[in-house]
């Protein structure tokens, strides 16, 4: 019994410690003037992590806190009062949502673009070579649901090409689509060019010309909740400038 009690006390103490730590951590986006909190779409993880490192090097004493998630999630968090300095969205719609809530200072600027690509397992078991191949009978293709940006893009490509896919699954995020391909469950998935690049040798990417029918534009903006507009603007200049362009291009992003 006393052992059980001790264990319970320990558990409680642990939970409390974790709770206070979580509270103490980066609660202040606009908190201290040397912290810059950037909310960025999940697909920007690699280039923004590199750019944040560059920014910290050129602005000594500044710490860039990055928070990556789906753009819709981030937009919801921001409109519910999450403190952040900069928001980079993977589509115009979610940036518009944040702007409509009166949270954006200045005008959002497009800084990159992204198009769909077909991802197949390295062995390409279904022999996919083109977008039309995805509609062949027996091919297990996974796409994003139409409610999320990558699904909306997949839908408009289907509309423009007249090729109707019969997916075995419509995932709620592009990472879930990629996961189904890397695990070999699916024969093919529709993801972004940048996801293929980031996945390395785990998938084979097949670019297709029809992808140009649905280009995703990435806007970035400073937020009114920011307590350090200057620093926010400096970060946005880095992202939209030549240095940012190069890092983004290396990750597979197109020009804005």
């Amino acid at each position: 019994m006393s052992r059980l009690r001790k264990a319970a006390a320990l558990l409680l103490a642990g939970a409390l410690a974790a709770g206070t730590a979580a509270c103490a951590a980066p609660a202040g986006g606009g908190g201290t003037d040397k912290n810059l909190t950037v909310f960025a779409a999940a697909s920007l993880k690699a280039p923004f992590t590199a750019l944040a490192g560059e920014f910290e090097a050129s602005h000594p004493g500044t710490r860039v806190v990055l928070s990556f998630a789906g753009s819709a999630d981030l937009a919801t968090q921001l409109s519910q009062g999450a403190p952040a300095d900069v928001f980079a969205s993977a589509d115009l719609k979610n940036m518009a949502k944040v702007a409509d809530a009166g949270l954006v200072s200045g005008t959002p600027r497009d800084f990159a673009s992204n198009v769909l690509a077909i991802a197949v397992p390295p062995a390409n078991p279904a022999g996919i070579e083109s977008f039309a191949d995805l509609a062949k009978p027996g091919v297990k293709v996974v796409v994003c649901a139409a409610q999320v940006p990558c699904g909306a893009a997949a839908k408009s490509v289907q509309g423009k090409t007249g090729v109707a896919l019969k997916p075995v699954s419509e995932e709620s995020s592009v990472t879930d689509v990629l996961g189904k391909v890397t695990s070999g469950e699916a024969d093919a998935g529709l993801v972004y060019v940048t996801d293929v690049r980031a996945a390395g040798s785990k998938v084979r990417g097949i670019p297709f010309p029809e992808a140009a029918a649905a280009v995703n534009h990435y806007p970035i903006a400073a937020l009114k909740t920011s307590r350090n507009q200057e620093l926010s603007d400096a970060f946005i200049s880095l992202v939209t400038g030549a240095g940012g362009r190069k890092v983004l291009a290396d990750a597979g992003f197109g020009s804005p």
Partner: protein
Amino acid sequence: MTRHGYSGIPRWVLAIAAAAALFVLLPLAAMVARVNWPQFIPLLTSEASLTALGLSLRTAAASTVLCVLLGVPLALVLARGDFPGQRLLRSFVLLPLVLPPVVGGIALLYTFGRQGLLGRSLEVAGIQIAFSTTAVVLAQTFVALPFLVVSLEGALRSAGSRYEAVAATLGARPTTVLRRVTVPLVLPGLASGAVLSFARSLGEFGATLTFAGSLQGVTRTLPLEIYLQRETDADAAVALSLLLVAVAVIVVGLSYRGPAAAGRRAGSSAGSGQVRG
């Protein structure tokens, strides 16, 4: 129900208890406050919602049946058996209770998936589990099974084995004892275990998303539909969430009333000296 017993709960305990109750109830109340009532019925009766609800109810029912079929023997072995490694087995069986469901989904993927441990043989046999409703049922059973095993094992232990021993000395075979004595004795525990398994299956999200995918009418259960609707239509997500809360309240209500009422019946018929409050 009696007033004679000692009920001197310190005030500060009451205060903390009230705060704890509020902590659970307030978020639910906040959600109810967010419901778009004029649109509530149309949101609930949209084709996608009804399909997801139907699929959820069907798969949760199938998973509950599977949990009972697999869980009853397992609970019996854990409660009545005596073999080396029994405690270890129990720990592993209970693992899905504390494991993040997404981890369960990954584990299932590497077992039943196309490239998985059993998946290859299954595919040769013409059985494809990935992206099918079967995958949903497997994921739900995986996470819900411990609930049945825990409830039933507890019931078996507290019922003791006196009646079974008597039946055996009277010449009943083990299967007869199981059927005529053991199962009737622990029926309330079995029932509440089954209800809890059903509830857990109904709420399953992470393992399903990882293992089964998400396709309307095939694998997109209500929690997955809520997660997806949240992207574009917050009102629909809230309405569906409320529906799931309502189902959960009914289920929990059933499982807490069930054993008490049934326990009283079993107590009086078996004549055991149960204390009745």
